């Protein structure tokens, strides 16, 4: 917890979206994300939700190289824990609240919403990189 106050604040915001529950799709298409675009968000990890069917990472951050961008809470979705473990070497503990991160992602087409499909996570302090492309598993005998 490198920035406990900021993390706690963002955590509270995250809890705030709990109102107005509308749980619908489980396995859903990813076409709500604009895969023709890649944006990079730099900031601090708030929470990795390591659950099926889609893992998500929330980050308190700003758009990289966008002068004057106000820090905001961003939410990124990925494939399942099983697929991330195999395709990208992830585990529940690879990123912790307070870690400085850089996220490459395809943003939601609804640009008013701060979310996207995570393509690559970089841990700033270690340089460790995790990808999230489950189509990288398409051959037998992977190690």
């Amino acid at each position, binding site marked *: 917890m490198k920035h406990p106050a900021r993390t706690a604040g963002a955590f509270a915001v995250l809890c705030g979206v709990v109102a107005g529950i509308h749980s619908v*799709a*489980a396995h859903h*298409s990813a076409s*709500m994300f604009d895969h023709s675009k890649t944006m990079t968000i730099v900031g601090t990890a708030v929470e990795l939700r390591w659950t099926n069917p889609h893992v998500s990472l929330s980050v308190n951050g700003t758009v990289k190289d966008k002068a004057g961008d106000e820090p905001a809470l961003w*939410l990124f979705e990925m494939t399942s*824990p099983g697929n991330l473990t195999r395709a990208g070497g992830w585990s529940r503990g690879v990123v912790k609240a307070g870690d400085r991160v850089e996220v490459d992602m395809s943003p939601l087409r609804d640009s008013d919403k701060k979310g996207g499909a995570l393509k690559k996570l970089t841990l700033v302090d270690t340089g460790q990189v995790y990808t999230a492309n489950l189509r990288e598993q398409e*051959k037998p005998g992977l190690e």
Partner: protein
Amino acid sequence: MRCIFAAVLLTSATIVSSSIQAAELAKKTIINPPPTAQDWADLAKLPDWSGVWNPKITDQDAQIKTNPPPWNAKAAAEATKMFAEEKAGKPRPLFVECLPEAMPSWMLVTHNAMEFLFTPGRVTMLGESDGNRLRRIYTDGRAHPDEPDPTFHGHSIGHWEGDTLVVDTVGVLPQAFVAISEAVGVPNNGDMHIVERIHLAAPDILHDDLEIIAPNVLTKPWKTTRIYFRQRARKFDIVEGVCLQGNYSERTDADGNAIFVPIERHPWGNLVAPD
């Protein structure tokens, strides 16, 4: 005369007795006999399908254009609308509330791994999602029930033709989608019949050749092959995948108890990002 009367009586008694025996037999519970040592030994003669199998998703994607189902006019119109919705970035959620992808969509559009278990008289398929993704394929020679109670995965019977498992499935819920992606699919609307020929196409590549007969949405049987890759690295072991867990965040309540709290989603399925 007395002899004739006795003979008639005896015959009548025999007929009544036979009828009772037949009725008793009809009522007799059908038993799944305990497997013998030979039954277990015979499993070794089957092809080796051990390991974990993950789908070739890029081929699922490609077949959307290269091998579309022969939709009837109504289903085609619905599919066209769904393509438009998906293109607009608001995909139709098909697999809602964590209901199973069901048959045949599990085999058609899954992004998740599966495994096979061989036991005497049965092949079991287990998938890594939904918390309840499972197919029981009976290979003990039984027939389908006369009136199968419809289920998400239907009633499946199978037999081996050499190293190919031939599976016949009926009794799938009419609500189960014939899906070609996670956003485009039409409910089969009943009377669906699926025939699969599952076999190794290469030492570590499995093919499921499906023939889907869905007369209420297709103009003719649709044939498609779905491809799976074998993985033996232990990190590919199937893990628990409880879909409903994705609707919750892990939190701690005021009493210090670990609890789940619901999260919010967009109508088309993904998590809601904060304003």
